[in-house]
């Protein structure tokens, strides 16, 4: 919960968090090391100096630190756990649904647990998705369309198998499709950040919500156009938001374009924990105001109401969270913990 200077309470749902294990003994090969090194470069490059972690904490922070950083030190009321399997790089997996489920089991009211699928797993993968939905009651999935698999150099939401998986999601009540369209590896010969397939999928599946993580950065120009055409396309701010510290001028342009094209009802806050922590991100976001010249040019403003929606209300709507009821529930469990 964030409290403004005037005492107003802002309910925060962190739309993008991970419980990963990148400890050296989990590295399967050089790529495991290089992967976490790259994340660490994002972390050290964009975090304020006082929020930088030592490498060993970054590799494996564990559930206690995560709880503390999100809910005790941080302003999060709830957080969405997004998996990133990477079983090719990490023996135990980097951040599987099962690894994330540890957090959900410990703190069921705090977390929303998402799953994942890969359409190239065929029929077997459809069954695995059903099992995931049944075990964890997931309402969302995180997808990496640029992931390699054997001879395949990534996939598109428009592929026939992807369409079958999306149909299956609809049947299982998995309505929130988070798609990673941001910094990635592949495919080799295409523009790896291409967001065009979102457009078709969003039209074909009007009952599903497509949350484009990282707002298609670095293809913001294309993403804005697509998101405007489709009422069920959302933008996740993970990776864009930390620029508020290092490059506030760029952040102002980016957020103003997003507000202009997509609007305040369709943007979701995400810390991308453990790459960044919510406390400093939210402190800076709440203190941030658009420069006058940007307001003039785009005709938009980042009002308190817009911030409230971005920080929690939009995600609450997508995940069916009744904010008032959830507040009471969290307050009750907090006083129960205090009494024990």
């Amino acid at each position: 919960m964030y409290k403004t200077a005037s005492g107003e309470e802002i309910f925060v749902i962190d739309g993008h968090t991970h419980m990963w294990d990148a400890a050296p003994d989990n590295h399967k090969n050089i790529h495991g090391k290089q992967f976490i090194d790259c994340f660490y470069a994002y972390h050290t490059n964009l975090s304020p100096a006082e929020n930088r972690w030592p490498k060993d904490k970054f590799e494996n922070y564990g559930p206690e630190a995560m709880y503390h950083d999100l809910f005790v030190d941080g302003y999060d009321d709830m957080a969405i756990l997004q998996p990133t399997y990477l079983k090719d790089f990490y023996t135990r997996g980097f951040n599987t649904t099962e690894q994330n489920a540890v957090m959900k089991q410990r703190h069921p009211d705090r977390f929303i647990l998402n799953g994942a699928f890969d359409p190239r797993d065929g029929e077997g993968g459809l069954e695995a998705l059903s099992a995931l939905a049944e075990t964890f009651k997931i309402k969302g999935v995180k997808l990496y369309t640029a992931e390699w698999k054997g001879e395949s150099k990534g996939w598109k939401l428009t592929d026939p198998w992807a369409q079958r998986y999306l149909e299956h999601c609809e049947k299982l009540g998995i309505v929130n499709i988070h798609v990673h369209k941001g910094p990635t590896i592949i495919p080799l010969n295409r523009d790896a950040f291409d967001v065009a397939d979102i457009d078709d999928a969003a039209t074909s599946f009007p009952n599903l919500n497509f949350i484009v993580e990282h707002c298609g950065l670095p293809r913001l120009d294309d993403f804005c156009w697509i998101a405007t055409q489709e009422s069920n396309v959302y933008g996740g701010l993970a990776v864009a938001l930390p620029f508020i510290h290092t490059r506030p001028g760029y952040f102002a342009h980016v957020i103003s374009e997003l507000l202009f094209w997509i609007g305040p009802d369709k943007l979701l806050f995400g810390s991308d924990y453990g790459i960044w922590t919510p406390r400093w991100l939210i402190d800076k976001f709440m203190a941030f105001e658009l420069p006058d010249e940007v307001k003039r040019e785009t005709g938009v403003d980042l009002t308190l109401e817009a911030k409230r929606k971005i920080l929690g209300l939009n995600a609450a709507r997508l995940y069916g969270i009744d904010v008032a009821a959830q507040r009471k529930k969290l307050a009750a469990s907090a006083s129960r913990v205090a009494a024990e």
Partner: protein
Amino acid sequence: MAAQQLPGREDEIRALLATVSDPELDEPVTELGFVTAIRVSAEGDVEIGFRLPTYWCAANFAFMMAEDMRAAAFGAAWVRGVRVVLDEHMYAEAVNRGMAEGLSFREAFGAEANDDLAEVRRIFTMKAFQRRQLALIEHLRAAGVDAESILGLDLASLRRMPLDAGGDLLRARYLEKRAIAGAAGLADPAFVDGKGEPIAVDGLAAHLRACRRVAVNGEFNGALCRGLLAARYGEDSCRAAGMSEPAPGGVMDSSREPSFVDFLRAAVHERAAAVPQR
């Protein structure tokens, strides 16, 4: 190869490499701190070392830059051979082999690439065109030229127009990319949209905002890449480090670890045997 013998020639190569840009960031590879070493032998052999902000940077961009650097270095008449060596990158082996054997992208990557890079080049040349056009128009407007006059210019008049040094550079950079947007003869309009259509005065604001989105995006990426490079190599400023020696231990020992591609092929069998993970 004996290094450091011919500083004049090294400077010549450095100047040629400054004409090569990162396709995505539209900034010279030398400015970005990507070039780590230039070595020149008395016989006319050139070796260029380069590095990228992350181990995962897109292979297509890495290959394009390597190709462009190789071609640029051959711009010096005395050059007999050029070796371009990429350090610490998951595709270093394929890129370096492609450079050594003069392969195309498709040849170098085989099954991992299903097309050559022409379309990617076109997309990013277009983005560079839009960014450079925005910068030039903003410069002209700040210099007091009104929208009507700017949009009325043909290429001959733009070339003749007296500009200060800053404007002259922006004009040269814009003209380099102007041909991507259609006919670029002296009588053709200086400023057109991406399809080569003239821009109407009342449509200029919207047009420039679209260009600004591309520009902001590019600058955002540039900032990220510089920061990641600095974080990766423990340097405060990539620009200052632009011509430093390669990082110690910078070349990956490929004998110890399988290449990414080998590894993916091995993973095919592993995956076929495994229950689907998702």
